[in-house]
């Protein structure tokens, strides 16, 4: 006997928290689309964004409306730095090298955070509204609902940017054919930089929301693992895929966690991943690459 109201309530919350996966997935896809780099350090970039916000809002006691943009800008700067020092030198190397560089990067970021802020768990100042959101009888925790709202708005904004802004078009052009983009006079290295900066900024926003919900610690990069599953399921180079898969994985986690138990959460998502990859090796919406000799 399934309790439909209960299932509805759980599903709603699951989908809402999936919004955050979608947002972080967007940050990931952006970099992959432009530079073909699988960024394993995405969770750690989220973490840095959250810690920067913590520093500005809690330690320097700046108002929230100032602390958020500062944290986002700071994280963007970090993105530029990473691109310039670690990714640019590997231009033309096999993609596996860049992938492993991001593995190292993840470790560096965790270490730096522990040096500066120590490994203790901390709480971010409360800045999201605290009145619960009710849909019918179903309850959604206010932070989760607001987080999902921000995620949706931001994703919509980026989609529009991709479509109409010059830089967005350049980015899409680079993604579809690097050589042709060069030939058309697009400054490809600059596109790379922009992609990393934008990705880091989006990651910062996601990190601030994730931190507001669950608190921050130097191990919050684990969030990145779920994000990785999301983008793999959606297809590494598809924004739409990140969105759909994000909501879907959020839902799967919620349902598996509720009806099977907490230990099945990660298992369920990874099983979804394996199944999807067996059926569609490039994800649900990913571009299928043609092998040439």
């Amino acid at each position, binding site marked *: 006997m399934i309790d439909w109201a*209960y299932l509805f*309530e*759980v599903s709603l*919350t*699951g989908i*809402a*928290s999936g919004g*955050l996966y979608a947002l972080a997935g967007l940050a990931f896809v952006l970099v992959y689309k432009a530079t073909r780099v699988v960024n394993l350090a995405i969770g750690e970039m989220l973490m840095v964004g959250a810690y920067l916000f913590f520093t500005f809002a809690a330690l320097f006691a700046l108002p929230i409306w100032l602390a958020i943009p500062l944290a986002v800008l700071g994280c963007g700067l970090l993105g530029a730095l990473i691109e310039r020092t670690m990714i640019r030198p590997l231009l033309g190397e096999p993609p596996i090298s860049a992938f492993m560089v991001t593995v190292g990067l993840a470790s560096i970021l965790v270490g730096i955070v*522990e040096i500066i802020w*120590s*490994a*203790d*768990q*901390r*709480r971010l100042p*409360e800045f999201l509204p*605290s*009145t*619960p959101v009710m849909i019918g009888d179903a*309850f*959604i*925790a*206010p932070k*989760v609902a607001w987080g999902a709202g921000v995620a949706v708005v931001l994703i919509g904004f980026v989609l529009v940017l991709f479509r109409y802004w010059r830089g967005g078009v350049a980015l899409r052009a680079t993604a579809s054919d690097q050589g042709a983009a060069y030939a058309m006079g697009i400054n490809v290295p600059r596109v790379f930089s922009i992609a990393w900066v934008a990705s880091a900024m989006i990651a910062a926003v996601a990190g601030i929301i*994730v931190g507001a*919900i*669950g*608190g921050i*610690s*130097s*191990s*919050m990069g*684990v*969030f990145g693992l779920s994000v990785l599953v999301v983008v793999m399921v959606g297809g590494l180079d598809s924004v739409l895929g990140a969105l759909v898969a994000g909501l879907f994985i959020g839902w799967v*986690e*919620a349902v598996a*966690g*509720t009806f099977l*138990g*907490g*230990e099945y*959460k*990660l298992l369920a998502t990874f099983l979804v991943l394996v199944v999807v990859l067996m059926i569609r090796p490039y994800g649900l919406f990913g571009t299928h690459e043609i092998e040439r000799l």
Partner: protein
Amino acid sequence: MFDRKSFVTRRSVMSLAAGAALAAGLTIPAQAQQEDIVVGGSIPMTGVFAFAGVGINAGMSDYFKIVNDAGGVNGRKIKFVIEDTGYKVDVSVAAFKKITSQDKVNLYYGDSTGFAKTINPELDRNGQIMMAGASFATELNDPKKYPHQFLVGPDYTEMFGILLNHIAKEKPGAKVAFVYSDSEFGRDPIESSEALAKKLGLSVPVKIMTAPGSVDVSTEVIKLRRAAPDYTIFHGYILAPIPEFVQQGKQMGMTTKWMGTFWTMDSSTVMKMGEAGDGFMGVMPYRYYYDDAANSPMLQKIRQMRPEYQSTAYMQGFLTAMLFTESAKRTLAAGKPLNGGNLKAALNSIKNFDTGGIIGTPITIGGNSIPVGRVYKADMKAQKMVPASDWISLAK
């Protein structure tokens, strides 16, 4: 060609340095001074458990300083040697090997359940060392399997027992929910405690296991609300995600009372929960730093030595050092050599022992643990933990 040469040497510096380090360490173990009693420690001064490690180290050092300033144990000074572990089992084991190969160690402090289990065969083989540590794992509370170790407080099942006893007295027949993390630490007391709850006439309508490292617990909160428990006990966490449970639960209008176990219950940790944490309860085997109960000379001494707040991990370290010293004293008084078996026997001879107020009731160590504790409650206005029960002892 000249350029090439300097190029090579620069590149090779790293490997040469590694070789040099290897050579430097290949020394014959230093002969331990006969008169010192050596206490070793694998203590996490860094990493996720550093907040506890720093306190433990301070507590143990302080007590040994008191002992040494008063002339030591039977005229023998205590030497306290520690290595940082970063709360990683392999590093802990390496630290143990390093310390034991440099000194003749009599007593040891280990930093985790994993370490305690890993090093146990070595302790049995070696036979010279008695060990205590930061773990309260139920599994370790078995004198047959772990003859040379003990727990400086109740094990996790006994912590639950203390809470459940308190609940059964306060509200007979209450519904108690267990929320725990999917880890060895989290799962430790759950099954045995569910049985105990039944025995005490309580019911456990829901047990929620959260995925390790999960930050978003909103679906779990929904599940918890459905069960409508009178009490909710968290275990296997330090802080996150407890505040989120409490906050969202309160927003949803839940009236359950929230409870935690030892590692959550440090005053500074509970205070981080903010307004929502008011009334948060939990079990604590030691008195808090600011407890001004009479007849607690040790607490006064601690406040003299350290004017600022000291964590409950500090108290744990302090008491460990006290029990180490007492065991050594009793062993030497009986004219026996200091080895694992004798130290443990001396420890188990401790009856109605006064801890100078660290624990508010005289303790007896029959087996591997000290099954006493007290329920405390957070008072956010005073920013303090205040007693919510009397001292509860599970000893038969």
